[in-house]
């Protein structure tokens, strides 16, 4: 009975990392970055490719290869997120509300098909030698086997989330991000370089998504070009559920969605999994239309 709990927390941690990107961008720009799921997927693929390169370079300690994969993937995903913003969203910043949304969908379709054609339409296997040592169980609670990999995923995700929170609360750039999300015009008038803050937001959100992507591929042993669509949808739901625009809300939402999915499948069967996340969203929005922790009113979209 405890296994849905441990699995749900693990999965929830991954959703939370992705949801942070959605929520931060919405907080600052008031737009939903539909291409965020694809940035997650690109991080996943670059991580797998980097590990493939490490393998062909010969014997390398697993820890070093993984660290390298994370850094490379986060770097390229950040670059991708930055590019998305500059090319597809910034020119439309003063256009109608709908324009950047449609642009985002276009970017999403483009990236999905690009990876599908450039890489593989089939599943791509995560090189198992890099996750093998982590797959063994760390301990057993009740009937739940908690593997080192699950602990690693939860640990790394929480570390990144805490890091983000501290960054937003304690650094100058973080303060600037909070100012921009409160009132962009005034922030600009007080001398905050709004364009740079927006870019930083995308870069940070994309890096987190890339980390989530690699963790997902390690956990599920495979990656696929449409993984961004599936996970992005659920992470977006998590962000809205927690209160879109709110960083702790995204984290809370991620864990809730993860637990809801696992719990629903455990008690009612796999057929209901896709519905679980959306049902949870509907129920919560009925009672708290702004999301669980949301202060921003979701009137913009």
């Amino acid at each position, binding site marked *: 009975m405890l296994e849905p709990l441990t699995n749900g927390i693990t*999965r929830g941690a991954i959703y939370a990392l992705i949801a942070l990107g959605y929520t931060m961008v919405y907080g600052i720009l008031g737009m939903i970055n539909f291409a965020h799921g694809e940035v997650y997927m690109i991080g996943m693929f670059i991580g797998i490719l980097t590990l493939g390169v490490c393998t062909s370079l010969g014997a390398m300690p697993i820890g070093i290869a993984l660290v390298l994969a994370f850094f490379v993937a986060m770097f390229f995903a950040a670059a991708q997120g930055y590019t998305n913003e500059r090319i597809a969203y910034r020119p439309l910043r003063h256009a109608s509300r709908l324009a950047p949304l449609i642009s985002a969908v276009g970017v999403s379709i483009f990236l999905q098909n690009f990876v599908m054609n450039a890489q593989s339409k*089939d*599943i791509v296997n995560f090189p198992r030698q890099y996750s093998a040592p982590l797959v063994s169980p760390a301990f057993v609670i009740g009937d739940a086997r908690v593997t080192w990999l699950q602990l690693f995923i939860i640990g790394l995700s929480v570390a990144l989330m805490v890091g983000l929170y501290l960054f937003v609360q304690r650094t100058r750039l973080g303060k600037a991000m909070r100012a921009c999300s409160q009132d962009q015009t005034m922030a600009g008038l007080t001398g905050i370089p709004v364009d740079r803050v927006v870019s930083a937001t995308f870069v940070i959100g994309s890096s987190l998504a890339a980390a989530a992507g690699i963790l997902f591929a390690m956990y599920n042993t*495979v990656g696929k070009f449409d993984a961004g669509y599936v996970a992005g949808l659920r992470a977006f739901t998590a962000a809205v559920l927690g209160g879109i625009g709110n960083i702790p809300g995204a984290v809370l939402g991620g864990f809730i969605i993860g637990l809801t999915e*696992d719990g629903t*499948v455990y008690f009612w*069967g796999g057929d209901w999994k896709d519905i679980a996340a959306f049902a949870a969203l509907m129920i919560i929005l009925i009672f708290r239309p702004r999301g669980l922790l949301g202060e921003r009113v979701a009137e913009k979209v």
Partner: protein
Amino acid sequence: MITRSLFLRMVLPVVSLFGAATLMVGCGGSNAKDDEVIYIGVAGPFTGPQAKIGTDMAQGVDLAVAEWNERGGISGKKIVVIRGDDEAQPKQATAVAQDLVAKKVVGVVGHFNSGCSIPASEVFNDKKVVMISPASTNPRVTDRGYNGVFRVCGRDDQQGTVAGKFAIEQLKASRIAILHDKTTYGEGLANEFKKTIESLGVEPVYFGGVSKEELDFRAVISAIKAQNPDLWYFGGIYDQGGPLLNQARQSGLTAPLMSGDGLIDKELIKSAGKNAEGSYLTFGPDPARVPTAKTFIAKYRAKHGEPGAYSIYGYDAANVLLNAIAKSPSTKFDDLADFIHGNTFDSAMGPLAFDERGDIKGTYYILWIVKDGEFVVWEKNETAD
């Protein structure tokens, strides 16, 4: 000087007549060249997650067509293959079917997935084009009584039955969990398996589905594990079978997996590695043991590399179609369909004859097992431990 009335009375009619003439010449009608070519269609997933297995099948067809063309074609006419990619999506399948019909194919080898063959067959039946599927196993493909729909593979009610009987009688399983991918094929197969084990007195301890894009199966694996099964069944395709096996073994689900023809592909082994060992699969007879298949395997290897599981079925389906086109009184739909119903064909898998529904006569499915990274036919003395 061109006045307005002059324009309306002379220039405009000339231009419009000229335009109409161009349209009529450019579209429709038949080119003199078309009469020297016979078109056949091949429909299946050539892009997307099942691209490999679809392409394997299409290359089998290409081999058959190449052989016929080397022998001079049919009545001196060259045979040309037109491929239609349905990406394993039922919605694309009807579009592909209509496109092939518009291109005037005499017959079609396809589709691959049952979910595609069934809607496509409606189009082919309506437009009177013969369709032979190399791989669609759902019973509904031939159960609707369409005279021109055939298949050279088995049916899921046979496949599920063979698997169910094996599970109970050979493996003596008593706690069986069943999972499927919610497609026409996967769910249909799982249902047949369930019906069989229930008729033998065993109720499944779990029955559920996962969506086709799902890659994270831990939730259903937990639910299955909680039931302590000694065998579990998956109705689905290898692209999900691989990660499913990996995650199951990681979660501590050690019971053997049983599945159907959707999992027989090298990609499963590449994806799951050792985690696939000991899995039971239902499939047709081993081509390597059928003497007539050996020539096919050698020829295919020379042209296309290692054959996939369905290359030989594509080859056989194409040969049935081409034989019918060559030997029946005409290439009209009714003559072709009646010819196929009424004759026995020599194929790489042995003699093929069809019953009134379009299914092949005779039993078909046997059990295979994954051993040392290879698919081998299950023998009595092999065990999965």
